Every structure is written in structure tokens, then in C-alpha cells.
């Protein structure tokens, strides 16, 4: 591999942000579809939203916000060279991620148990807007869930690097970027939550 005389800290951060923009636009496509179909089927969307469990949604929001807090604190911890605490905080983030996924799993299986999933007979026979709402819901939260998994794995890998001493107060860009990615996942959820669970 090519060796670099010096690490370009700001460059790495810029690169990460650019990548986050692409993620933003990826979800942006789903939000575009949401806004168009919401305009077309306000009633059906409200009805669909009422079928989602807003309590679970709220709990998940709290969990994700907390995970984000842990991630942000982990960055502070590393910068203050409190490496043990940083690892513990990342552990907290990953724990939250796991909790989030469990709740998501419960929600999804409840819906699927009721015959509500993309392409299901139930949705085919229901009003058109309902099928659109739930397809959007499953695809958006599905892709979001995938990002949670990727983000969790990324942070776990970084925690190992902190333990190994490769990431520390002098060289923490990896963690900063990992945390940025995690906050993005949170950011997307901040919009998914009211749009799907609350607007009814």
C-alpha cells in the first residue's frame, strides 16, 4: 500500500460528509415518494399510520437518541484519552442498536402476522393507498434497519481498534467518522418516526 507522509484529517472528514450526503439522498428518494403518495392518499396514510404502534415507535426513537448520545460521548472520551470509557460508550451504542432491532423485529413480525407485508393478499384486496403506505413503510424501515446493522458493525470494529490502541486521542478520525455515520442513521429515523408513526 502507498504510505502517506501525513494523514489528512480534514480530508477524511470531508470525504465522510460527502458520503453522508449520498446516504441522505438515497433516503431522500423514499421521502420523495412518501410526499407524493401522502398528497394523493392522505386518508389511507392516516389509517395506515394508526395501525403502526406509536408506543414502540416512540421507544425506538428514545433508544436511537440515546445511542447517538453514547456515540457522541465516545468521541469526547477518546479525545480526552479516556479510552476505556470510550469503549464502554460504544458498547452502549451497540446495545441500543440491538434493542432497536429487537423492537423492529417485534413490530415487523406483528405486521406480517396480520398479513401485512409488501405484496400480501391482505394489502392487494385493501384500498390502494394502504398498500402503498405499507410498502413504503417496509422498504424505508428495511433499508434503515440495514443501516443500523452496518453502523453497529462499523462501531464494533472501531471499538476493537480503540482497544488495540490504533485509535486514540491523537488519531481519532476513524471514530469520528464512525460516529458521524451513526448520527446519520439517527437523523433519518428522526424523520421516519413522525412521518410513519405519528401523522394520523
Amino acid at each position, binding site marked *: 500500500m502507498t504510505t502517506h507522509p501525513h*494523514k489528512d*484529517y*480534514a480530508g477524511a*472528514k*470531508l470525504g465522510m*460528509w*460527502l458520503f453522508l*450526503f449520498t446516504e*441522505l*439522498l438515497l433516503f*431522500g428518494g423514499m*421521502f*420523495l415518494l412518501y*410526499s*407524493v403518495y401522502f*398528497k*394523493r392518499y392522505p386518508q389511507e396514510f392516516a389509517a395506515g399510520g394508526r395501525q403502526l404502534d*406509536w408506543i414502540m415507535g*416512540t421507544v425506538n*426513537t*428514545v433508544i436511537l*437518541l*440515546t445511542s*447517538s*448520545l453514547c*456515540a*457522541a*460521548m465516545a*468521541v*469526547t472520551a477518546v*479525545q*480526552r484519552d479516556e479510552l476505556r470509557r470510550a469503549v464502554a460508550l460504544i458498547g452502549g451504542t451497540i446495545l441500543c442498536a440491538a434493542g432497536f432491532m429487537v423492537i423492529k423485529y417485534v413490530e415487523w413480525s406483528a405486521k406480517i402476522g396480520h398479513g401485512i407485508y409488501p405484496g400480501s393478499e391482505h394489502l392487494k384486496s385493501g384500498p390502494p393507498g394502504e398498500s402503498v403506505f405499507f410498502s413504503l413503510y417496509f422498504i424505508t424501515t428495511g433499508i434503515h434497519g440495514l443501516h443500523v446493522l452496518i453502523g453497529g458493525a462499523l462501531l464494533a470494529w472501531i471499538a476493537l481498534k480503540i482497544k488495540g490502541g490504533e485509535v486514540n*486521542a*491523537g*488519531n*481519532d478520525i476513524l471514530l*469520528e467518522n464512525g*460516529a*458521524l455515520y451513526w*448520527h446519520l442513521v*439517527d*437523523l433519518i429515523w*428522526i*424523520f421516519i*418516526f*413522525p*412521518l410513519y408513526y*405519528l*401523522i*394520523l
Partner: protein
Amino acid sequence: MNEHHHIISYKKLTAIWLALLALTALTVAITRVELGGYKVLGALVIACAKAGLVIAVFMHMKYEGRLLRWLLFLALLTLAIFIGLTFFDVLYR
């Protein structure tokens, strides 16, 4: 190399987190009462406020240079334009 950093205190992060929780509670609250179309608007405004807090503090945007801020603005503007122009079709069809 550390001079790049502005280290954000745990206290400040916790305060932001509390604010985010409060805003979450607020969204839930306003969408429970009957406000008609306003509740959509209200929920979105609050979501934007929350996003703003996360970006500014958790993501350290407040302490970054002007370049990154402009670029973020550019990305958001692009998304807004994509959605906005599509509505020239959707609204007038």
C-alpha cells in the same frame, strides 16, 4: 494534530440529549391532539429542529469550517429541489 478538535463536554451532550427527548415528547403530544393539517407541519418542524440539534452538536457541525456547512446546505437544497420540482407534476395533474 489535536488542534483540529473542539472537545464537546459530556454535560453539553447530555443537555442536547435531554432537549431531543423533550422535543420527541412534544411531537407525540401535538400529534395526539386534533390540529388538522397543522400537525403535519408541526411534526415536521420539530423533526427539523431535532435534526438541527443532532447535526450541530452531535455531529460537530457547529465547530466545522464554513465549507462543510455550505456543502451540507447544497445537499439539502438539492433534495428539496428534487422534491419541489416533482410537485409541479403531482399538484397540477
